[in-house]
């Protein structure tokens, strides 16, 4: 149980960690983070993003440090550090966290589709198709999950072109004033920005699936760095495109920005962007649900498909009975302060416990 033994055949090369981390971080958050950030940090929002990026790097360092002492995944690390009962309690928390993360992504995306494209289609219909797709991907094992993630990152980067197109209407004085906000505001911005930053913690689950996992640390940092730079870029473009007051009122600034694109044969680019965004979102959902079901499998020794079915049914039921805006409100609350604090406080603590245990053993 301690060693999360994975056959070499099912492992992936270390450099895919770049794509796994980057893709997991860049999800639904990128479409809408600007509004909240602009509210709290305004023109200094980019400082918050960079600070948040720094925190992510520290957390990734902590994760790799943990695994350099106790190789395996978070499930075995928890039980090794905290004993069977307490360890398994935290394992359960992690599983729930991953499930909620996946659920949030699915429901947020369905919400976007509802608002922008198909208002009459019921949520559960979308959820059903997504869940079948997720099951199909997951049934190919982690290798397939990685493949879909990798291709989705490669296939979506061209969307950046419509940000560059939007720069045609840039008003660069909007960037000023710099250092206008108090440190408290900027720190609040760090917190508000979290939805575009979380996702790196999935390393906790897929670490045993990486060949020469220790060498993958630079790729993890690279992925996080790319996300930070991308987010800063998007934020700066939004700042110069919108005025401050407008930005605070726009729910999905990235999407609204793309609707100005007009080519001779095509216009209203946001339809394409939203549809294409499915490619970005699906790996997000898949990895989270994969992690949750894998954790469940490790904890209770069942076949992975059963927890996956169970979780799919839970998500489907929520989509049938709860209106997406309502559930999203609750889920975002859970993820944003609580999930975030949980990850950011628990992981250093875990490292501390493991480290002292190791020292004591040596003494």
């Amino acid at each position, binding site marked *: 149980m301690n060693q999360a033994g994975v056959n070499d055949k099912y492992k992936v090369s270390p450099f895919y960690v770049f794509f796994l981390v980057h893709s997991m971080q860049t999800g639904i958050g990128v479409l809408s983070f600007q509004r909240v950030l602009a509210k709290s940090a305004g023109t200094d929002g980019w400082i918050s993003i960079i600070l948040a990026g720094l925190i992510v790097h520290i957390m990734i360092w902590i994760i790799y440090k943990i695994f350099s002492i106790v190789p395996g995944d978070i499930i075995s690390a928890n039980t090794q550090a905290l004993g069977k009962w307490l360890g398994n309690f935290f394992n359960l928390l992690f599983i729930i966290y991953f499930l909620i993360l996946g659920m949030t992504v699915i429901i947020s995306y369905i919400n976007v589709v509802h608002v922008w494209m198909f208002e009459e289609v019921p949520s559960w219909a979308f959820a059903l198709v997504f869940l079948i797709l997720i099951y199909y991907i997951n049934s*190919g094992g982690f290798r397939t999950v990685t*493949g879909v993630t990798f291709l989705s990152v490669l296939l979506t980067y061209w969307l950046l072109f419509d940000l560059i197109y939007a720069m045609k209407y840039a008003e660069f004085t909007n960037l000023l004033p710099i250092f206008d906000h108090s440190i408290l505001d900027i720190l609040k911005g760090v917190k508000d920005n979290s939805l575009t930053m979380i996702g790196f913690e999935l390393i906790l689950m897929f670490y045993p699936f990486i060949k020469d996992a220790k060498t993958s640390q630079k790729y993890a940092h690279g992925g996080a760095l790319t996300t930070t730079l991308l987010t800063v870029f998007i934020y700066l473009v939004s700042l110069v495109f919108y005025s401050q007051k407008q930005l605070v009122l726009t729910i999905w600034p990235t999407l609204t920005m793309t609707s100005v694109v007009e080519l001779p044969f095509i216009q209203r680019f946001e339809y394409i962007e939203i549809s294409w965004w499915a490619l970005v979102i699906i790996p997000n959902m898949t990895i989270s649900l994969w992690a949750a079901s894998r954790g469940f499998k490790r904890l209770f020794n069942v076949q992975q498909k059963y927890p996956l079915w169970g979780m799919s049914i839970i998500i489907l039921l929520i989509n049938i009975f709860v209106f997406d805006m309502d559930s999203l409100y609750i889920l975002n609350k859970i993820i944003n302060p609580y999930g975030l604090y949980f990850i950011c406080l628990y992981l250093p603590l875990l490292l501390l416990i493991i480290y002292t245990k190791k020292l004591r053993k040596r003494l």
Partner: protein
Amino acid sequence: MLFNRRNSQKNLNRKDDFNKVSDIRSLFNSLSSSNDFINHQGNLKGIGYWVSFYRSLIDGQELHESVLSVIPTLETISLEQIKENIPIENTLITSTRKVIEERIMRGEIAIRLDTNLDECLLINIASKQGRQIGKPELEFGIISPQEAFVEDIDINLNLVRKRLPIPELQVNELTVGSLSKTKVAVIYIEGIVEQENVDTVIQRINEIEFDEILDGSNLAQMLYDESNTLFPLFLHTERPDRIASALSEGKVAMVIDRSSSALIAPTILLEYFITMEDYNMPWVPASAFRLLRIFAVIFSIFATPLYVAVLTFHYELIPKDLLETIVASRNLIPFPPLIEALFLEISIELLREAAARLPTKVGQTLGIVGGIVIGQAAVVAGLTSNILLIIVALSALASFVTPIYKMGNAIRLLRFPFLLGAQIWGLLGIALASVFLMTHLIKLTSMGHPYLEPIYPFRIKDWKDSFVRLPFNFFKSRPVNLRTENVTRQPQKQKTSKKRKNDFNE
């Protein structure tokens, strides 16, 4: 006690002998019940002899020239004597029933003497009926060799061996099919191929328990890793040069008797968009045409679904000038875009299927009648719009550019799920269908090797010959994917004499 046992053993032996005797006679008796089995009786110097064969399997002229006319010239008659004097190799004197039966069924004749009817001399004069080597029909190439495989395994092996005259080229012959007894030759170059691949192929062929294997594609389906897929996992080809090039890359080839298509395994998706012509052209046009082919395939899958998606859900996507044209061409059509598209797609599929089943001349006429008359009439009658007609015709055309016919078939069918997705959720439906397709391709393996390589797993070294075909000095190593034993294709030496200096000719 001891004596007794020996005695009983002798008895047993005698019994065996007796059985064998009756075995061979009964074999000939049962063979004779078929009307095309001939028992020719001759007499030479008082000793009668029998020549037995299937009339339909042997070459009559050869029989007269090399066998029947030789026998009367002999001084004494015995099977050994005949064997010595007949100018045909690989003859055999035996009295084993199984061997005799097998060989007679492959077109050999059996000669027996009246003195011992249980011993046969088997001589191979099988008739080699079949086509002459012709031009490739399915994979025609303008600037490549004009030879194609025929239905005879020996001629096909000859075509391959002539291109790779090295002793390392190994042929491993197997027989499959309980009724058809099809000969399958597994070919590979020892020292290059990964032995595990060969073993897997041979093992899978041996595991087949089916009564008839009549063609290469028939066999291939039984060897696939995954049978629930549209995509061909083994490459069928009728070009010997393609087989030779695959073998030298480190793949395994299979040549099947009575089938003009040989198989290559393992393969990757992009290989199906490669023609042998790509290697006979400078790398820039070769790469350009390859990219064109890949673009054509993508176009042929997505064009009609995009039309349906945009016109059903997303009118806003089209700028107003273009929209006017489209609306003008559609304003008399009473159907939703999906029905319109399905109507045209299915009629094109009908045309294609009908043209494939008809003789060439009729097929041409049908193409004109179907393509021009029906298409034009459908537009005039207000059943479809002009624009869709153009899109559907173009995408049908585009699906023909794949050099491998089977891949074309897969692409032909792939567009229908996408059409369905487009009808249900527009662009989102197409996106979701694409993710399904992507996942399917990632999951597929050919002989255990990932199908989507070098895209995923990402291997930059193999990109030299995938979407583009880089110059040959990039072809230093064999594909990583195949894990070949010998990796280098050309020695890593510095070119000395031919290297030009960039000095503006001084």
